């Protein structure tokens, strides 16, 4: 088991995306892995309208003892975004030196496609200005694994290189959380994501 540095201050991860992209599965796997690694852990999510294409967020904190389930703004050690513009929407959650892991894809909100609001100006430049940015083409890797819907688990694989758990804890978490018939393709997706940033 990994014996991490001082964890009296929790390690904070925010996961953001668009409803239906699989943020909840991802945060479940992360929180279970933290539990298996021996930490106190809290996983918080708001999912009332999550399936309707809205912006969704979940947060995972682990350490020796975790109180608040909400991560203070600017205190996330890692920000995982399943979509580029959502990364920008939530970037204020991240520490200045945080790793910002982003699936390099964009989903245009209906407010823009219907012409009600202009698209974000300079989105890519603003993201690129972040020193910790890790853009990952998770969708092609998911297709390579065998199913586009495993793009979220590709991101889990990439995230696993940024978090102090042994790989075995991730494997245990995935076996617990993913139905057996989808396990193999998801394990492949995890490995591809892990290799892509490792």
């Amino acid at each position, binding site marked *: 088991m990994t014996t991490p540095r001082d964890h009296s201050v929790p390690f904070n991860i925010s996961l953001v995306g668009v409803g239906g992209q699989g943020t909840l599965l991802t945060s479940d796997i992360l929180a279970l892995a933290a539990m298996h690694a021996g930490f106190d852990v809290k996983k918080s999510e708001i999912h*009332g309208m999550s*399936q309707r294409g809205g912006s969704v967020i979940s947060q995972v904190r682990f350490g020796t003892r975790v109180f608040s389930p909400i991560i203070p*703004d600017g205190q996330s050690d890692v920000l995982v975004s399943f979509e580029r513009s959502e990364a920008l*929407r939530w970037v204020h959650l991240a520490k200045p030196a945080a790793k910002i892991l982003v699936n390099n894809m964009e989903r245009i*909100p209906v407010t823009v496609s219907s012409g009600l609001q202009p698209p*974000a100006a300079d989105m890519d430049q603003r993201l690129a200005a972040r020193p910790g940015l890790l853009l990952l083409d998770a969708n092609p890797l998911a297709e390579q694994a065998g199913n586009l819907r495993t793009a979220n688990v590709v991101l889990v694989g990439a995230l696993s290189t940024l978090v102090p758990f042994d790989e075995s804890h991730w494997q245990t978490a995935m076996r617990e959380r993913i139905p057996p018939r989808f396990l193999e393709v998801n394990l492949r997706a995890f490995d591809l994501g892990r290799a892509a940033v490792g």
Partner: protein
Amino acid sequence: MTQTKLLSANQAIAWAAYRSGCRVAAAYPGTPSTEIMEHVAEFKGAIDCEWSVNEKVAMEIGVGASLAGVRALVAMKHVGLNVAMDPLMTFTYIGAIGGMVIVNADDPSLHSSQNEQDNRSLAKFAKCILFEPADSQEAYDMVCAGFELSEKYQVPVIVRTTTRTAHTSTLVNIGSGERGEAPAIPYVKDARRNVAIPAHGRLMRVKVEERSAALRELSETSPFNRADPGIGDLGFVASGVAWQYVKEVFPDAPVFKVGLSNPPPIEKIRAFAAGLKRLVVIEESDSVLAEQIRAAGIPVVEPNTELRMMELNPMRLAALRTELLGDPRPDAPAPETGLPTRPPVLCSGCSHRGPFYILSKLKAAVCGDIGCYTLGAAPPLAAMDTCVCMGAAIGTAVGMRKAGLPNKRIAAVMGDSTFFHSGMTGLLDVAYNRIPVTVMVFDNRITAMTGHQENPGSGHTLLGAESPQARVADIARAFGIPRVHEVEPYDLARLETVFTECLDSGEPAVVVVRGPCVLHEKWAGKHINAVDPGKCTACGACFRLGCPAIVRGEPRDAAGKRFQSKIDPMFCTGCNLCAQVCRFDAIAPVQ
């Protein structure tokens, strides 16, 4: 051997019910309480559980089970308790026999609700025991304790979760995880105890006050109410998840943790406050505890920092820390600006889109209701005038008609689950009083908003057993509505004809728009559509459907203001509404 699991409070509550020997459970779905009953259903052999038609029925089922001597759990969101208050307010007089735990989920910040009412006031009003868990372990422990205390004091017990506790997973020790047995209580027919007529009710009323005195003593000795020592002369009283924020932001301060908060442990708090110069009460949302503590003559500091509205969080408590201790505010970066919003929208292929498009076109006054279809209020459809509470669409439409609204076309719109929940009584009023409004039931045969729960129209129960499918049109006819139509949702011309006929008929009418939820049935049309850029004139008509599959294409003018449309093949379901609104035949099936 003890087991530790990572559980949401909703899951932990189901485990606690199982552990406590709970035998009957009933709920109506509502965010953030819905998952409780879905998890109770995992213990279906041990606990008789159901989706009730509404919260009032769920509460009454709990009352009946408790009076029959078994432990009962009922669950609902905060506004659900409004519906169930009638049975609760008299049941609290009669008193529980088998343990009765009511889990009630408040929604500070209105993440998925129409208001932010703080139901702790209702627990006080109903003179019940109230627990406020701060995490999933406490939710588990408080439900277990709640069953026992409910029996000991013959009182209903309310466990108040919030969206944050309900949907946060934390580590929970569930002991052996095995089923426990509740004490057997034989049923005794006892009219003086259980029949609330005035003569009996007056006797019950006196007993309620005796019980309240006993509960005040209980609160003073409950292990859920405890003072944690700390450093300094500034101290806090905190309840529920707010306690976590206090521990996060004021880690060294003395904190009195209130877990059993009605009745509050006033004397314990008085003793705690005696050693302090300043006492601050941190609670989400109303000043329920602070007012009672102050009324007992204990001075409470009222900070200038706004802490009464919306969900608390560590940032808001950091602002309080600055006010109280003068510490500098921690650096928090400002959010990026100039980003388009991403609100939830009706899904591509949603069966509600076509009817709303036509209602918007017909310029009808639309009284809406609670469900996915409330999203029809958002632009570009903007097809809703009012939304109040479950079932309110019909009564509101009747009131508008009686008020003589200049718009002759008045429609009430609700979904099937809402219709069964509390729309039926409104419809009977329409039939009985012959009110010329058109009631439209958008019937997808599922409770979609909260995640596809079964309902009386779906043909299945919570446990998947087959059941008769209540048919809205048959109910309307049985009530005496003279004009009843059933239509399918993807034929715009037909929708327009039927809607116009009903709205202009001058008599009560019901239109049932029947089509499955695309998220639930994974329904898709025979083909998906594409836009022919050679024919698209960038008129923008298809954008006005608000379909997430229709996206901006190339600009068609020099100023870059008008855009052709494109259809994202990943999201198109082939519902074909866009082809029907295109006047230039630019949208056609992909071959």
